[in-house]
């Protein structure tokens, strides 16, 4: 299984990947992207099975990334991992076809509970 982690912060990509491992999802291939535009390119080239993405990023935001992905016909499960969890953003994420929105700071349990239905341990 391929999982694409998209975040402009290298630190946060490491934390997300480590948390995935702590949540029991460590055996999967991890791909990384620094912004939505790069994420979209990698998603189209590599066809990941799950995408975890920050919201606020330079070049292309996470919500633009998701909308562009869905507009291209992709149904890849897409989960935001973001520091903002307002109702407005949750509604936007839901309307755009996101699986869920994980708010930072998070725990391994949050990842297990949220992603357990789409990622095998």
């Amino acid at each position: 299984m391929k999982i694409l982690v998209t975040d402009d912060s290298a630190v946060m990509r490491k934390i997300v990947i480590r948390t995935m491992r702590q949540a029991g999802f460590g055996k999967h291939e991890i791909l990384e992207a620094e912004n939505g535009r790069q994420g979209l390119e990698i998603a189209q080239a590599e066809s990941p099975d799950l995408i975890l993405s920050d919201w606020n990023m330079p070049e292309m935001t996470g919500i633009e990334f998701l909308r562009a992905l869905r507009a291209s016909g992709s149904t890849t499960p897409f989960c935001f991992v973001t520091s903002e969890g307002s109702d407005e953003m949750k509604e936007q994420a839901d309307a755009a076809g996101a699986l869920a929105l994980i708010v930072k700071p998070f725990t391994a349990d949050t990842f297990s509970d949220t992603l357990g239905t789409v990622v095998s341990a």
Partner: protein
Amino acid sequence: MSVFTELDDDVREELGVIITDVFASVLREEAIVTVNQLPVGPVALARLAVHDMDGDEYATVEVRVGVGLARVMAARMMSISSPGPEDMVDSIAEISNIAGGNVKTLLCHHARLSLPKAQIIDDERFAEAEPADGSTYVRAIVLGHVVQLALHPHAPVADLLWPPETSDATLEPTP
């Protein structure tokens, strides 16, 4: 009335919860609110802007930690043994990003966040106990170090970068 000033006790308490939660979860260490001052000397700081679109006003959220703790943070967050200045800057930037997102959710209904900007500076001043500019400070102790979250209602934001606005071009279906 500004959403960034005249914060009541409940909101101040929530800001304390934000700073302790962010540091506790990222560092996996206990963090408790304190009234102690951040020591003067070299600090890693990061700031980002919140634009409240309902009231069309701006504030900055700033997180400061001493360089000693910044080094520990970077080592833990990046799983490296000898973090350099760039690693410390990246780490404090991400901490401020998380804190800023939570502050935005706490205070605003319809707002946007800038990208964080971080640096290491030599600070020789304590924060004022009762700032005249309406700033709010909350502090916590983590690993024996004081960390500080500040909300500055009238701080300049011109040097901060914003994520791109949603453009129709990205929504075009791929042929």
